């Protein structure tokens, strides 16, 4: 029973898992957040700079992982800082992934509610998605990786098509002036760095990888591909709607897609098509965090993983109903990103330091 949960994934699958985990709500909201923080059309440069943050974090993480091969963070953190502190850090990370699942599932249900199914109660949407997700995660990381491999090309294809279709609305003037307010704005990268986070799951999934020495390539691609896609989104949205036009839009990307028309290509509107693909994308995100949360509980308490998966299901459902509106939900999203920065940026640095000082524990 315990053996079946330890399926392996190839480096390609690990890369795609990271990409899928990273690309989530940010696709819809990043342009607004970036526009509000940076305020000039130079956001795309800020994005490029901000992508260095997850890259640096991931580099620290794989250095740490290298010292404890074939073990997940849940298993080796106790070896570094002692059993109780290790358990505490593990539990916090588990809680983080639970919260992340909650945020993703609620956000998905909200968006589906707004754009696809106005009359269906949100609870039903969440329950259905959670059941599907449970069906996926009981198959272990291999199943999640394979489903991501199905969804990833669809996402890329949709993105390319949407980008090409929005070319008609693109105005280069919206991206000018370059560096009009000096170099200062492009270093306001906080919100962008936070929403391009995602590569941190290498902390745990590296233990499931077949060729662990390829981890560097995995994190590099895992940061590069989402950055390119986010860049495309930013340039597309700002180029069409201008930086001032998107500051007050909840989901600027959807507005962009709603604003072009290609009736000769069968559909009248394309936002629903895009949102369907986006929903699949975020489904993988929430399944990955759901799995990592259950994996954390199972490895911290050294028990079989399945009861935790079933047990988390009602908890995630109840907590996902706690935010009362989209505003509170966005606040939750911001909190998650902040916590992620601490958990996966600072904690691994400290642990790496301690681990160096204490020497390799066998």
């Amino acid at each position, binding site marked *: 029973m315990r053996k079946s949960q330890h399926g392996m994934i190839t480096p*390609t699958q690990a890369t795609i898992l990271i990409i899928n985990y990273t690309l989530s709500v940010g696709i819809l909201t990043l342009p607004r957040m970036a526009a509000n923080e940076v305020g000039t059309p130079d956001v795309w440069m800020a994005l490029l700079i901000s992508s260095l943050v997850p890259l640096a974090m991931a580099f620290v993480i794989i250095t740490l992982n290298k010292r404890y091969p074939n073990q997940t963070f849940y298993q080796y953190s106790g070896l570094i800082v002692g059993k109780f502190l290790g358990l505490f850090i593990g539990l916090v990370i588990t809680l983080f992934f639970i919260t992340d699942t909650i945020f993703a599932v609620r956000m998905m249900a909200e968006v589906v509610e707004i754009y*696809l199914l106005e009359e269906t109660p949100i609870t039903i949407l969440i329950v259905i998605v959670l059941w599907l997700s449970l069906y996926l995660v009981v198959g272990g990381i291999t199943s999640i990786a394979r489903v991501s491999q199905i969804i990833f090309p669809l996402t890329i294809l949709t993105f390319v098509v949407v980008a090409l279709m929005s070319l008609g609305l693109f105005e280069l003037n919206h991206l000018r002036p370059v560096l009009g307010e000096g170099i200062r704005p492009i270093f306001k990268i906080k919100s962008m760095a936070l929403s391009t986070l995602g590569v941190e799951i290498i902390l745990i999934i590296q233990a499931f990888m077949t060729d662990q020495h390829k981890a560097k390539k995995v994190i590099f691609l895992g940061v590069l591909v989402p950055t390119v896609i986010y860049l495309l989104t930013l340039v597309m949205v700002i180029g069409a709607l201008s930086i001032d036009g998107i500051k007050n839009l909840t989901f600027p990307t959807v507005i962009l897609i709603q604003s072009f028309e290609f009736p000769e290509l069968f559909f009248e509107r394309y936002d629903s098509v895009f949102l369907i693909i986006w929903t699949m994308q975020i489904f993988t995100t929430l399944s990955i965090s759901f799995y990592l949360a259950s994996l954390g509980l199972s490895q911290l308490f050294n028990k079989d993983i399945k009861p935790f998966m079933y047990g988390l299901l009602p908890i995630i459902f109840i907590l996902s109903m706690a935010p009362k509106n989209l505003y509170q939900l966005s606040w939750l999203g911001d909190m998650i990103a902040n916590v992620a920065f601490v958990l996966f940026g600072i904690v691994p640095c400290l642990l790496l330091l301690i681990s160096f000082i204490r020497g390799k524990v066998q």
Partner: protein
Amino acid sequence: MPSFETIKSFLPEMYIYGIALITLFVPLVISKLYYLSIKDPSKQSDWVDETSSFLSYDFEENVSLVKEELGDSSDMVLRTFQLGDENLKTALIFLKDIVDIEMINNNILQPLMTDSPYNDLQDYMDQIKNGLLPVSEMYETDCVKTISINMLQGNAVLLFQGTDHAFILKTPKSKTRSLEEPVTETLVRGPRLGFNEDIGENIALLRKAGVNTDLRLISSQVGSRFNKEVVISFVEGIADPTLVESVKRKIQNIMIDNVPESGIIEQLIEDQPLSFFPQVQNTERPDKVIAAMAEGRVAILLDGTPFALIVPVTLSMFLQSPEDYYHRSISATLNRWLRYIAAFLTVFSTPLYIAFVSFHQGLLPTQLAMSIIGAREGMPFSIIIEALIMEVAIEILREAGLRLPKPIGQAVGIVGGLVIGEAAVEAGIVSPATVIVVALSAIASFSLPQYSMSTSLRMIRFLAMFLSASFGLFGVLVFFLFFCIHLVKLNSFNTPYLSPAIPYSTSDWKDLLVRMPIKMMNKRPKFLRPKNSIRKQ
């Protein structure tokens, strides 16, 4: 520190907790039921081989033993005669309808009765062994069980007085039809030869495919009451040895009384009996079997059926036809795409139509939406009922056409199609657009090369229809995700069902969406883990 009131304000209402319980229990119950249903029944202890009796030196007793073993059956012939001056009692026993009587008369009885210089029993038995009887195969045994099995296979048994050994003489006569072109798998180009019901002839067809010293045939028996020969066939040096081992083990583990058709074996060796998808390929075409073995797969042939089984199999193989390789690459690729589109339409055309018409009219081009909605004006049923009526009618037509003799079947198709389609629209029961969409999905399903796969796709379409009627495009999405998850979990003999597409096996993509020119396909499919991967220099 937030106050208690603040925390309390975030707690959801009571009914949420009720739904949470349902959220937990539904999957729990489903998984419990699932594990109960697939659990292997405990090994039955009364499943033991009866201890076999052996022949003795008493001639009369031997004869009656053999007779009793087969229950003194009415088709059993017991020919007793006496040899030589000592009047040695001799008996030839066989089942008259499955032996070659001419061979028994000319090659056994004639030499025995006319030109047998009998003096001494031991000497005589040596003569028989060394060439008195012109019979190609001959064994000696003293086990009554072996004797009876051989008699049932169409062999004759020769018993002598004064010895506890019997001779088994190979005299079977097989009753088969001639080799014909398979009806279910017709091709424009390719060999016009199909398997028939005789395993000997089927093996001959495989052997005749080309001189190959590495073609291995492993024979074993299945069925405890109606024992039959089953042959596992593969190419040594290509097929993965662990695959061959696992096929052998699964065949040996079959404990069933009767195997009338290879479909029974298929269901007993597949990994997921509750899946919608077939996990073993069946075919009547020897060229398909040979091509599969050349890729490193394993074929299973059963006596008494023209359908050979091929394992492992993947989803893409069900959408491919041997003709893809016989035609030139570009036309083969286009045909393959056509089939992929047909498979997509089979499953998704009706559900998407339902979703668009009942939930997302705004997505359709205005003209189209207007005409569809306009045509549905005054229709008595909701769109899902309408689609269901048509789908069920078409399924019934298909089934009826299948059962009836061919000419009548076609008539039923035409009359049914006209009546159901035209009249239902005229009478205002269904809208014309529904008829178009349902007919499209039915025709698409008929264009798929494997019957078992098109049945599966047609089945899951109904699920998709219900989901899309309840949740629109989101329902179609849920359906799609559900089957993505199901398919990535599915394995056929340790080969992922979606390979080579998922997990990515880039070197095998030369033969997935496109069929590259044969000149470029110089490797065998990697996902089948062949021992030797070079197909072409």
